[in-house]
């Protein structure tokens, strides 16, 4: 179940949500009528229900579903895996194909269908971050497909890629997996950076501070993501030089990330701010993502990592960057562009209630996990020693608050669609970008004639 939680949240929630946002927003933001390849888009979407149907069906199979964690280290996922692992492998193949097709479509749209006058350095940041994310996806999804294919061969065709008895090497699996895995975690956060870079200027009523440095920061984060993979496996027995290299390269990532956090803060500085729901989520993103970033720096210190490795501290770290990081940015995006999609305004009071419940829920859930992790509670083990019971109780209460608060979100959306007040074309008066020049709700095909790009709508 934990394995499925990880896989569904990574491949089934965060990634499709970002791809969905991209499909809806990119054509409007670059001034195109639609995505470049609507049919391929359709295919890449309809693969997903089958992939996840297949993956979830493993829960009902004899021997149970995948039980080796979302990182599926071999040989735990080959020699010692339940029979359902083959279904898991094919599900991963299908998700990979879907992601690659989605990415090709996104790059083709961005590179070829921008309105005249929208040069690369005038593109909105959500477009920029998705362009870079899509390249990351294209580069690493084949690596993931290769890893699971080798697993398939090891299980069914007697090869020994990861089987030491036949001359293979289990550590190689970890290298290949994390060569995919680290860019993958940035795939899940870069579009979030783009979203927040739209929302904060809109509600601070100031242009984004340091547009150029934002673009270069995203590009350098993407580049660095390819040379830090072994920081996930400091304890496998690496030579000192290797540990030092991966420690320093990992810490280097803090620099472009720090530039971004600085720019968001500077955008808010002396702005005439108002705190509507999207802005609340965006500010919470900046604060809580930074906490997740700092715990990441702590984990990057090799000697300290020997203590933190595989404890709940790691769980707290990546949930802080993924839940109040990636997920909050998605929720913020939904609130921010909701009037554009539906032509209606949501109920602001309920939106704020949703925010505060989520904010409290997230922190109550994940903050105590830092402490239980530092006290030595291991991850991936379903039972725990008695002394961790209190922290886990607090986490559970927080998780229930967070879970139920999403029902408020559902209510806000449904209520907004059915009974919301009509929204203006420019629903937020501080928002800039081509999508706000279109009527709300946006027509099915936005710009049949390439629009003129006025300077006032340009972010750069």
């Amino acid at each position, binding site marked *: 179940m934990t394995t499925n939680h990880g896989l569904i949240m990574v491949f089934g929630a965060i990634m499709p949500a970002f791809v969905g946002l991209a499909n809806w927003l990119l054509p409007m933001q670059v001034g195109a009528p639609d995505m*470049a390849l609507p049919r391929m888009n359709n295919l890449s979407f309809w693969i997903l229900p089958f992939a996840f149907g297949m993956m979830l069906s493993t829960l009902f199979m004899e021997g149970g579903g995948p039980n080796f964690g979302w990182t599926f280290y071999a040989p735990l996922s080959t020699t010692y895996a339940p029979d359902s692992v083959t279904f898991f492998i094919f599900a991963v193949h299908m998700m990979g194909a879907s992601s690659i097709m989605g990415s090709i479509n996104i790059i083709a749209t961005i*590179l070829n269908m921008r309105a005249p006058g929208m040069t690369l350095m005038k593109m909105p940041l959500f477009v920029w971050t998705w362009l870079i994310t899509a390249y990351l996806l*294209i580069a690493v*999804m084949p*690596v993931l497909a290769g890893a699971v294919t080798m697993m398939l061969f090891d299980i069914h065709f007697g090869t020994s890629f990861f089987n030491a008895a036949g001359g293979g090497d289990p550590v190689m699996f970890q*290298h290949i997996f994390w060569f995919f895995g680290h860019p993958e975690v940035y795939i899940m956060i870069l579009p979030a950076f783009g979203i927040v870079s739209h929302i904060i200027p809109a509600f601070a009523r100031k242009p984004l501070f340091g547009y150029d440095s934002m673009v270069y920061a995203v590009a350098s984060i993407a580049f660095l993501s390819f040379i830090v993979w072994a920081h996930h496996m400091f304890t496998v027995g690496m030579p000192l030089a290797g540990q030092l290299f991966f420690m320093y390269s990992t810490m280097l990532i803090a620099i472009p990330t720090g530039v971004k956090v600085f720019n968001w803060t500077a955008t808010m500085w002396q702005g005439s701010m108002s705190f509507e729901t999207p802005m609340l989520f965006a500010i919470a993103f900046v604060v809580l993502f930074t906490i997740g970033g700092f715990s990441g720096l702590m984990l990057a210190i090799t000697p300290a990592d020997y203590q933190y490795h595989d404890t709940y501290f790691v769980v707290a770290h990546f949930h802080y960057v993924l839940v109040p990081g990636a997920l909050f940015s998605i929720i913020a995006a939904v609130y921010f562009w909701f009037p554009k999609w539906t032509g209606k305004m949501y109920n602001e009071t309920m939106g704020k209630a949703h925010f505060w419940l989520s904010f409290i829920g997230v922190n109550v859930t994940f903050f105590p996990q830092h402490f239980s992790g530092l006290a030595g509670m291991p991850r991936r083990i379903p039972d725990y020693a008695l002394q961790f019971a209190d922290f886990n109780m607090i986490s559970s209460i927080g998780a229930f608050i967070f879970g139920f608060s999403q029902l408020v979100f559902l209510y806000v959306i449904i209520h907004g669609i059915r009974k919301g007040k009509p929204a203006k074309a420019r629903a937020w008066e501080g928002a800039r970008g081509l999508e706000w020049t279109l009527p709300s709700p946006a027509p099915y095909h936005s710009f049949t004639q390439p629009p003129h790009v006025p300077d006032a709508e340009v972010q750069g």
Partner: protein
Amino acid sequence: MTDSTPKNIRRTIRQLCLIVVGMCCFVVALVPLYDLFCEVTGLNGKTGGPYVFDPAATTPDTSRLVKVNFITNTNAGMTWEFRPEKGAVRVHPGELREVNFYVKNTSDRVMVGQAIPSLTPGAAASYFHKTECFCFNNQVLQPGEEMAMPMRFIVGRELPKNVQSINLSYALFDVTDAMGGVGVTGG
């Protein structure tokens, strides 16, 4: 992609597909590259294959002694007894030494075992040479059969001076099923 798809978009798609294909090739190439990298650096502690040793051409370096520790273990599900004759020996670099390992099939069926060596520190792996080792082949043991398996090795004279002890571990795997089970009964 229909015929009406503009030319520039088709070109972009072709380029992107090339990247995908390129990355697929890269993954396939990763496996041999990884092995090569480990062989050059000795990082994963794998020791080399049979080594040809000419005692006349080398004189032992009697100025220092290196302690070689032997560790044996059996993998999960492997029922054989497996132990070294001695827990450790002291050798001069450049000197040929033979040690025995004992193995016993405690089960009531014919089984095939394969020992996999691993050596630490990894930096010493490329200086540890074996002229004969049971790990070069797999072993077939009848039920209850016992066997002494020799391993002859030389620690290279070029071994860095800061390495004073080497740990050589053997993990014994049950490969009966992988070898086709019944097919090896006669062997």
